[in-house]
């Protein structure tokens, strides 16, 4: 009833008041667009993770207690040239001081602010290793000599061949990683122009990747749009028609992004910010808005070809497509709205905003688009109207043949799905951003350099709770470090136990035999007190807490995959269980671990969303088509496509990460569109008693072409395949695959299923409510 009333209203508005409809649509979009002033881009991926996730809780605790633990690695030097010379030392001094002066930087660890701890004739000295910018050659020789005597310290600050300095920068936790990275890189490039420069570390990657990925994605999406226009132009052969499709897409996008801004502005909710996870939002809406418009426009051309009357063609198109477009919109919007139940807060904004965009695209497709069509003269002798295009003719020619062998097609489809199910088991998660870059990429080259020549650029932390004055625990920490360092990926570890061991040796007249944790609590305590009297207590704040009840062990690693890091952490947990007798409260943390948990959450959210979406779509389709059977039929092609999508990722070793995991939403969004258009047309013809022998042919004749055109034009986003970032390439590939699997899933599996069902008259009568 509501549908009929709205249909009549839409027909009336489009045919009789096209200018008013156009003006109203523009004004409303403009109002929605004003929300863009509140639009916020958020690059801090850590904010995506719910505060209740254990590793985030531990990570926050670590940051609160020990300061920011995120490390950016900067290496500079020149291959084969020793840096133990005046100019290089002076440049390192200037660079360190310049970084220390940046508000975006919390702490610097470089050779110039390293402490030395020495004992000469009973005189304990804790002092700066480098005291001044302008060092004499003798002083430089002394520094080198001290580092040679302390190889563990040396490898923290300079490469093995003395040709590259290693500087660890800890960004200020209160500023965005992107802002910190920009300043650090600019400072390095300004002061160290004569050297080879390399950067790495999770904050560097997070800071640089989000903006680079977004810029690359925006560029390629524009190319995708151009390609989409070319494909539409070639098929529709009407510049005005393509312009109208684009117009609807652009207004829908403005509506979606503006609404996101408005909600963010009015509620202040952090859920409505645009993160790297939201990168797929515009693409998803573009495909859906394109789908609505393409279906309408092709239907209009077909009707105009038959009737020769513009108003009549519009009325018939609205009559024929109002319900399916409404249904595809409401089901897809409901599917995306289900994301409000996802554990990641950003997904609420993602789901709600896309749902608004989809709804706006539906209104525009059924009101603005017919009005635009109404406002234009369509010469009946134009090629676009006079005869079908090449694509339309191909689809018409081959479409009908597909359903001649429904059983074979169905079995083939099911076999493919079985292969997909097998492939799902092979899917791997990878969040290490190293995997984002192809070989030869400048950033990857830098990371490989840091792995090869320096300590690596990844860090892993272990938070240990216990009495840090207890020699037993300190010895266990030391054993843990020895065990961790056995892993070939680990370059170095450091903890409070190292400081205690060094101080013990120093107090015992620099006797190497005493580089151990003392066996007596009182001795440990004396060492702590001695440090507070002779060194800077701030030196220890990154290692042990104020009450000596928590300590942090940091491991610097070369590149490891997420899978390896999970195995590594599990292995260490087993080691702790087996060997730590008195204290067992040890938790692995760090950005790598938290990211791993985040991706698990993204996947969990996506799976929940897919399942909820399928259930919601089934019920909505069942309600509007008045039988559960139609609901089930509507989700079959998209369910098959989802399985094939993940199976395809597993078989082709495409990693699941926070970018690719969400792409399955495109399948839901577009897959349901195709299925509902097909079912709606089939149902119309079945109710009109079109004979079973020609019914499927006629359905494909009506909806086959718009489905294929829609899929083909959306495949233009395959332009992302040419990205320099691997996740974007995967996104492009998956877009092409999603379009292929959903369109062919509809035109083969669903078509075959309906053909077979249609042959059973009783079943079909039940489905149509005629029995």
């Amino acid at each position, binding site marked *: 009833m509501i549908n009929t009333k709205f249909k009549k209203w839409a027909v009336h508005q489009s045919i009789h008041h096209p200018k008013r409809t156009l003006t109203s649509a523009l004004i409303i979009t403009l109002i929605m667009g004003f929300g863009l002033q509140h639009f916020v881009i958020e690059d801090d991926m850590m904010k995506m993770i719910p505060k209740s996730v254990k590793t985030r809780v531990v990570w926050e605790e670590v940051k609160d207690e020990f300061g920011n633990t995120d490390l950016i690695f900067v290496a500079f030097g020149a291959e084969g040239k020793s840096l133990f010379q005046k100019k290089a030392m002076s440049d390192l001094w200037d660079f360190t001081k310049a970084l220390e002066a940046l508000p975006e930087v919390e702490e610097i660890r470089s050779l110039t602010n390293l402490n030395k701890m020495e004992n000469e004739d009973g*005189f*304990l000295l804790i002092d700066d290793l480098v005291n001044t910018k302008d060092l004499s050659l003798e002083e430089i020789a002394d520094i080198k000599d001290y580092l040679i005597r302390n190889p563990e310290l040396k490898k923290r600050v300079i490469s093995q061949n003395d040709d590259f300095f290693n500087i660890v920068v800890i960004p200020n936790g209160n500023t965005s990683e992107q802002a910190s990275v920009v300043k650090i890189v600019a400072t390095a490039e300004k002061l160290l122009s004569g050297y080879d420069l390399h950067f790495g570390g999770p904050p560097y990657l997070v800071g640089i990747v989000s903006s680079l990925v977004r810029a690359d994605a925006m560029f390629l999406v524009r190319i995708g749009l151009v390609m989409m226009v070319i494909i539409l132009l070639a098929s529709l052969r009407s510049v005005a028609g393509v312009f109208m499709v684009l117009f609807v897409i652009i207004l829908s996008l403005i509506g979606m992004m503006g609404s996101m801004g408005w909600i963010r502005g009015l509620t202040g909710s952090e859920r409505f910010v645009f993160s790297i996870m939201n990168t797929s939002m515009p693409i998803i809406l573009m495909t859906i808005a394109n789908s609505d418009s393409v279906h309408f426009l092709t239907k209009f051309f077909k009707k105009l070809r038959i009737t020769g009357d513009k108003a009549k063609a519009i009325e018939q198109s609205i009559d024929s497509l109002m319900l399916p477009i409404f249904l595809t919109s409401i089901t897809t919007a409901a599917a995306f709205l289900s994301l409000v139940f996802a554990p990641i807060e950003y997904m609420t904004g993602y789901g709600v905003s896309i749902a608004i965009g989809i709804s706006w695209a539906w209104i525009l497709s059924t009101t603005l688009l017919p009005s635009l069509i109404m406002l234009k003269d369509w010469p009946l002798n134009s090629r676009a109207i006079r005869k079908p295009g090449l694509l339309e003719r191909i689809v018409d020619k081959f479409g009908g043949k597909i359903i001649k062998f429904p059983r074979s097609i169905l079995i083939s489809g099911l076999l493919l799905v079985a292969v997909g199910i097998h492939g799902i088991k092979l899917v791997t998660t990878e969040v290490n951003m190293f995997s984002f870059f192809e070989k030869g990429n400048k950033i990857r080259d830098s990371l490989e350099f840091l792995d090869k020549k320096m300590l690596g650029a990844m860090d892993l932390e272990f938070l240990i709770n216990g009495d840090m004055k207890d020699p037993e625990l300190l010895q266990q920490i030391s054993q843990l470090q020895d065990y961790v360092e056995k892993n070939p990926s680990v370059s170095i570890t450091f903890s409070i136990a190292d400081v205690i061991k060094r101080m013990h040796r120093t*107090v015992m007249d620099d006797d190497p035999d005493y580089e151990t944790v003392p066996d007596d609590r009182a001795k440990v305590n*004396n060492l702590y007190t001695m440090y507070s*009297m002779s060194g*800077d207590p701030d030196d220890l704040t990154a290692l042990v807490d*104020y009450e000596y009840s928590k300590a942090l062990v940091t491991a610097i690693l070369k590149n490891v995959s997420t899978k390896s890091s999970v195995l590594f952490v599990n292995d260490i947990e087993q080691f702790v269980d087996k060997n730590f007798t008195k204290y067992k409260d040890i938790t692995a943390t760090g950005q790598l671990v938290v990211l791993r948990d985040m991706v698990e959450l993204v996947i969990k959210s996506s799976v929940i969303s897919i399942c909820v979406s399928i259930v919601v779509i089934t019920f909505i389709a069942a309600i509007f088509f008045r039988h559960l059977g139609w609901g089930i039929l509507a989700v079959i092609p998209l369910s098959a496509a989802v399985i094939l999508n993940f199976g395809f990722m597993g078989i082709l070793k495409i990693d699941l990460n926070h970018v690719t995991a969400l792409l399955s939403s495109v399948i839901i969004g577009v897959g349901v569109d195709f299925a509902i258009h097909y079912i709606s047309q089939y149902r119309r013809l079945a109710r009109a008693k079109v004979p079973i022998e020609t019914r499927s042919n006629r359905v494909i004749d009506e909806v086959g072409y718009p489905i294929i055109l829609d899929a083909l034009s959306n495949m233009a986003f395959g332009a992302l395949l040419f990205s320099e970032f691997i996740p974007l390439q995967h996104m492009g590939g998956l877009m092409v695959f999603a379009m292929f699997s959903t369109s062919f899933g509809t035109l083969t599996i669903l078509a075959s299923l309906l053909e077979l069902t249609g042959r059973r008259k009783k079943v079909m009568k039940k489905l149509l409510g005629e029995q």
Partner: protein
Amino acid sequence: MIRTIFLLTIIFSTTYPQDGIAIAKMVDERKAPQDIVSKTTMLLTNSKGKTRTSTILSKSINNGSKQILWFLNPADDKGVAFLKIEHDDKADEMRMWLPAFKKVRRISSSKKGDSFMGSDLSYEDMTNRALDENNYKRLEDDMVDGKECFVLEVVPNAEIKSTYSKHITWVEKETLIAIKEESYDLGGNLRKKKMFLFESLSGYNVISNIFVEDIQKNHTTKLTMGDIKVDSGLDESLFQEKNLKRLPRN
């Protein structure tokens, strides 16, 4: 410790000087006890509100140029002792007794900005400010807690390589005692706020409470001096390494 900080407790003559340097000179010529003995409780509070408390027996002579400290509390630190002897012509001597190792160790004093015992007072804060090593400027008078004060700007000379760019000191007009000081880092940013309380003892104004707040680290130190004795006849011979090893009864 008390003696060194005592130098900040400027006791002025009844004739108010007209400029900064004149005030500083009065400080240098002030009457001070020969020696001070006290039990000091030190309460450290970090930015998260976590605290550490220590009790220290302190004995000093010659305006704190010779000072010996024994840790009484917490139990873990009991017996640790520290001896400091300042020299005009060479680096100060600092020795520490580590009872668990039964060893005395000389420790470095080269980093004047380093914290003293983990507190917000650095070795520089604890050392006498020589008149000729700083420039003094009188600023506009001010009120602190209802007390009228002179305000001095103290700028260390470049050659002493201070870790501060300047200090602003508030001196109570009535008692001529410094009751508040702000110290600025080399970048000109406020680093520390210090408040001082005094009590009158045997004709001297002796410091009884110090509160220091490190603004940049959000860390505070509260020193409370108890059982204060002045001019108790301490002998120079007390300030020797051998005396670190034995915790005195009083």
